[in-house]
């Protein structure tokens, strides 16, 4: 026993040394069990190094709603990522502090644990690297991470949550980013009528079924998998955003073949995320389908789906109606609180 007591401090020393490069899992903060829906793609690798925990998620949710993230304390993540809109909003382009207009349409925050790319141009590959961007961007929160920490560090509620999550009260940038990512990992939408039909808990109406068939024939090559996106980047000839910061995926890669290409959007909860397009070019789903039907803008790198079909996806009025019926079966009233 005596010997054990003697070596105990040494053991502690060894443990703390080896733990230097990652957050030790605080023992009173259990991992949450996340239900991976059947048929969903594999989770992002970052998930495994930042698994949602009971208090990490609670802290992340509180931070997600924290208006002190913005320079003038008016805007939180949740100001643009609104639950009833599948954690997107209904503005054409995102609106930051003082009414500043952002470059693009707010992306929904749903099923991100299963995504390989984040943002419409895939600029980020792990969620933990994303929260700093809106915090510092002039058109969004226009603050800095140390300014944020300065504002919240004496808040007793935060002290308690950081303590419970990480074992001490220290508020660090890393811990903020990781907590928010943990919360976002839990935002899984898998309980739409479509899901229930798949689970034999419901049946499509005649119109929905017709729409599903048109969808599989004319849409599913891009809007594939149970996320309804293959996560590829494509130029589909939508009206172009002339802002000098916009080049689509090519903004990141510099690859001309990806000029004005954007990540295929998930269609889950699409009913709630109008307007559509990278900068909200289309007010309704009908507008989008009409545009496909009428023909899109020509481009050297226009996606073959259009290029090989006269730059359009021909759709009859009835097909459009059916498609919209089907797309509405992807609405998850539980997830969005409708």
């Amino acid at each position, binding site marked *: 026993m005596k010997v054990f007591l003697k070596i105990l401090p040494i053991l502690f020393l060894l443990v703390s040394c080896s733990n230097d490069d990652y957050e030790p899992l605080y023992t009173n903060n259990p991992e949450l069990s996340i239900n991976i829906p059947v048929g969903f793609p594999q989770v992002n690798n970052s998930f495994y190094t930042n698994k949602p925990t009971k208090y990490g998620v609670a802290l992340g949710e509180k931070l997600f709603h924290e208006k002190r993230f913005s320079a003038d304390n008016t805007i939180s993540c949740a100001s643009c990522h609104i639950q009833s809109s599948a954690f997107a909003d209904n503005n054409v382009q995102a609106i930051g502090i003082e009414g500043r207009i952002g470059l693009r349409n707010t992306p929904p925050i749903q099923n991100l644990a299963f995504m390989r790319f984040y943002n419409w141009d895939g*600029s980020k*590959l792990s969620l933990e690297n994303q929260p700093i961007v809106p915090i510092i961007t*002039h058109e969004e929160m226009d603050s*800095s991470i140390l300014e944020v920490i300065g504002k919240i560090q004496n808040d007793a509620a935060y002290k308690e949550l950081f303590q419970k999550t990480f074992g001490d009260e220290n508020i660090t940038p890393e811990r903020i980013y990781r907590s928010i990512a943990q919360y976002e990992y839990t935002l899984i939408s898998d309980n739409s009528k479509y899901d229930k039909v798949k689970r034999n808990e419901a049946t499509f109406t005649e119109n929905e079924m017709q729409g599903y068939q048109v969808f599989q024939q004319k849409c599913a090559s891009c809007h594939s998998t149970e996320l309804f996106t293959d996560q590829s980047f494509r130029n589909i000839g939508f009206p172009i955003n002339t802002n000098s910061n916009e080049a689509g995926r090519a903004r990141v890669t510099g690859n001309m073949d990806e*000029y004005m290409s954007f990540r295929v959007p998930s269609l889950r909860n699409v009913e709630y995320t109008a307007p559509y397009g990278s900068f909200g070019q289309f007010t309704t789903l009908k507008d989008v389908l009409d545009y496909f039907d009428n023909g899109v803008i020509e481009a050297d790198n226009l996606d073959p789906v259009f290029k090989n079909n006269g730059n359009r996806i021909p759709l009859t009025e009835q097909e459009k109606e059916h498609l919209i019926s089907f797309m509405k079966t992807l609405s998850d009233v539980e997830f969005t609180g409708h």
Partner: protein
Amino acid sequence: MKNLKKYLLLSAVSLAFVSCSSDDDAPVANNVTLSFKNTFGDTEIVLGGATSSTASVNTSDAGQVHRFSELKYVISNIRLVKADGTEVPYNVNDLDKGATVVNHANPSTLNYVMSNIPTGEYKQIKLGLGVRSDLNTLDQTRFPNFYATAGANDTEMMWEWGTGYRFTKIEGFYDTDNKQMSIHTGSTVEGSEGSYTQGVDAYRNIVLDLPQNAVVGSKAPKINIKADFDKLLSGAYNTITLSTGTGMGDNATPNIHTAVQMVKFVDNIGGNGTTDNKGMFSVLNVEN
């Protein structure tokens, strides 16, 4: 015993000698100043707007006149190479102490003073145009001063969406009708060095031989470095014709704040990163 005394005496004398010589003549270290001369060819650039009568006007190889209203770039990762080949890094892992934003509009930024450079003769300087990817993370906790400098309203050297710094920021006008040009460069890489999974690295390592050795010791030498922005459009790699529009080939504005057209400008001013390590830079002279 007699011998031992001799040795002791000798040691004492030599010790005194050593301490004398270091006190009087050569300190162990001194400053080295890097003085940046931003030019079009041999003429120092005068900034100015579209209607300015004093702004330097340059003509590119493609025949386009152009002028700058704003000119900034980041220098980091500075290393001095001694005559014997030893490399002396200057706070290369600390942006607060080893990086600077050269802002042509602010004369005090044109002279970067490096302190505590070990006494010796130096034959070469290496520096980074931009910020190495491993440090290019907007880490405010680690480098609060550089973060503040880069983010200041009169600097604007942050590339928020790429979570990194802008490496160069050039605003100006081109062609006889003074169309706007706006050229920003920065890195968009994700992943770790050697295994980037996506993006473009706009950092360039510059290697410049000094025409005469910089002698650090009792004096603090000054190295005059020319940055010839004529190369921006008329470089060793790309003869660039500026154009304005929304097509993927347009490069003056818009589309220049992205990785699409950026690499051509980066290669011209920073070298291609492999065979050319000079780009627009050269050493004019060393003031010892």
